[in-house]
């Protein structure tokens, strides 16, 4: 290993990055675009859900329930005079649900029997439908309590549930999406960028020129690794700054711990990128493979949006080969919960092994050969 030769290679790489600004775009523009999109565009918190309300026989009892619905920030009631009209509105996707107070509602209620209230939700978006059901139950519970209070009694139900939500009491979905997003962004920077740059050398024939020079294969690999590592860490710091500064996501853990695990993850991502490019020696194939084996799994199978616990066992098992999975767990914990070392050690060890595996395999495969 010759330091001067290595420095020369790194300088060459930086010159190339400067000349074709698309690398800088991937490292800095992409994080901004993605963070803005996710920070502002992706939310699992439904508000102002349009809901159709049909009251067959208006009465003080029914209006107090409807008032509860109107006051809730989760709902935006629209009134229909018949269930047929409301059904039509739901078919045309104007409302996501229907609350139907049938004719005998008030009579049954006043008689002291259990009144049935019909609720229909559009189940196409199952997750949203479940959330809407939950909000509706909340409005419902409030109404029951208010009724009991108004008549001077307490609502007599056996269990009084008190929910305590740790780490994210207001359940802002942004707080869990933005940290995980850093893993997606770094996967992109690491794998996509390196996959393309090495493949480009092969495609343009400059790899042959490099091989004809006295540099060793190890130096070539390090010469690729170091510049893109620096670029990737830059992009990562930038993303963290945006997450904290712009999106007000709390960072409860230690910043240097975050930095350490990010570096570990980036090495694994860069290793994957280098491996892809050493297998696929043209940019077209390298680019597509990079998207398919790194970006999409990091997006869907890392626990970033879809909880790994919800996946069927074989798929959940498969997620163990995706480095982003470990990093997403670390990120969500370090941002929202703090430094929880038992959790970090296992996930960090997995990242380390993957980094060693990918980099080692790349090194082993890379010989000064042209075939």
């Amino acid at each position, binding site marked *: 290993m010759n330091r001067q030769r290595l420095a020369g290679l790194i300088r060459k790489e930086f010159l190339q990055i400067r000349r074709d600004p698309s690398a800088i775009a991937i490292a800095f523009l992409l994080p901004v675009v993605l963070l803005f999109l996710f920070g502002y565009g992706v939310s699992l918190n439904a508000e102002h859900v349009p809901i159709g309300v049909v009251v067959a026989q208006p009465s003080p009892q029914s209006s107090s329930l409807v008032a509860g619905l109107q006051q809730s920030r989760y709902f935006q009631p629209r009134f229909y005079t018949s269930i047929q009209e409301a059904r039509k509105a739901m078919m045309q996707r104007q409302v996501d649900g229907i609350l139907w107070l049938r004719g005998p509602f008030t009579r049954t209620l006043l008689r002291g029997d259990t009144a*049935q209230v019909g609720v229909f939700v559009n189940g196409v978006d199952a997750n949203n439908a479940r959330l809407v059901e*939950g909000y509706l139950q909340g409005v419902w519970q409030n109404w029951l309590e208010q009724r009991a209070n108004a008549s001077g009694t307490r609502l007599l139900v*056996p269990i009084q549930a008190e929910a*305590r939500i740790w780490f994210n009491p207001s359940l802002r979905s942004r707080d869990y999406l933005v940290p995980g997003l850093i893993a997606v962004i770094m996967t992109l920077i690491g794998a996509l960028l390196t996959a393309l740059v090495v493949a480009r050398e092969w495609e343009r024939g400059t790899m042959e020129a490099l091989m004809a020079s006295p540099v060793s294969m190890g130096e070539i690999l390090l010469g690729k690794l170091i510049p893109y590592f620096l670029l990737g860490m830059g992009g990562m710091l930038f993303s963290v700054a945006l997450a904290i500064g712009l999106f007000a996501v709390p960072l409860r853990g230690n910043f240097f711990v975050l930095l350490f695990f990010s570096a570990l993850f980036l090495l694994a991502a860069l290793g994957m990128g280098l491996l892809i490019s050493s297998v696929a020696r043209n*940019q077209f194939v390298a*680019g597509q493979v990079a998207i398919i084996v790194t970006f999409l799994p990091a997006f*869907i199978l890392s626990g970033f949006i879809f*909880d790994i*616990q919800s996946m069927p066992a074989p798929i959940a098992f498969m997620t163990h080969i995706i480095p982003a999975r470990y990093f997403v767990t670390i990120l969500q914990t370090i941002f929202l919960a703090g430094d929880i070392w038992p*959790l970090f050690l296992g996930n960090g060890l997995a990242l380390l092994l993957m980094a060693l595996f990918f980099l080692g395999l790349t090194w082993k495969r890379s010989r000064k050969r042209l075939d």
Partner: protein
Amino acid sequence: MFARILALVIKEFLALLRDKSSRAVLIGPPLIQLLVFGYGATFDLNHIPYAVYNQDSGFASRELLGHFQGTSAFHQTAIVHNEKQLATVINTQKALLVLHIGPQFTRDLLQHQPAPVQIIVDGRNSNTATLALNDVNSVLLAFDRSWADRYHWGNPPAQLDIRAWFNPNLLSRWFIVPGIVALLTLVVTLLVTGLSVAREREQGTFDQLLVTPLTPTEILIGKAIPGFVIGGLEAAFIALVAVFWFGVPLIGSLLALGLGLMLFLFAAIGIGLMISSLAVTQQQGLLGVFLFLVPAIILSGFATPIANMPSLVQDLTYLNPMRYFLVILRGVFLEGDSLGNLWTQYWPLAIIGLASMLAASWLFRHRLA
């Protein structure tokens, strides 16, 4: 003219399929992704890991815990005996939630006093936390009902009777899998078209193409057709897998789905060619594809509802062809839509396709000059 376009189409197909690895890239990964994502992309919770912190020694708390053990939605992973252990199981994600039953639980209940139960939830994933709390509430409600019935607490004043339309069991797979048809079709189409011009520019063969008798429009058509064929075939195949493998119902009109697919491919290819004619190198082309693809997927309603976005972002989604195709797909698959009630989705797709094709052909000529 047709002979010339045909020749170009054949050449494009050869360029795409000649190489074994690029052939594999176009066919293999989408199928693997379909299976992995079809199973993996789900919001439905089952086997929620929970821990029990029970300070009550009476029979009522045992009965309540029996309700939790009896449903497949919950899976007990730990028993904790103090606050410190409680913090540990949540922190290390051994349990998503802890049920804390106080020492007076059975006594309170037997004295007709409401008895508190504390549910401590890991909020790191806010969506999972919300859904898990909903599930806990429905188990508690079932316990309430049976207890109130046996110990004469009186009838509840009213009851919600909730039914879901179109997807009665609220399987999120029924929502996600039709979306994957759009997702993978868009990815494949953009990759095929987005790099096609850039690759020729980089390899210098574009100049050769220019000196042939082909007009720029003919080149454009020739570059568009492979995307159309490959994208269409993959979409049809994925739709078949959705129905026959994942068991998603397809109750609407196939004609409506076919027309939607055609228009969507038209729009996607237009955008792909637009990106491709802007790019000078393949890296730029790929970056362009990416810069379009990622927002297009995120702001389409594929995983998270458009209605939850800020209104400015919602307006932006009207430019996204995937948004319309997702409505068409889910409408035809689950809601039984036909041609008649989807025209509001068709015409924006047609306009996006036309505009991007025109822009691509303009850029094409512009860049040539």
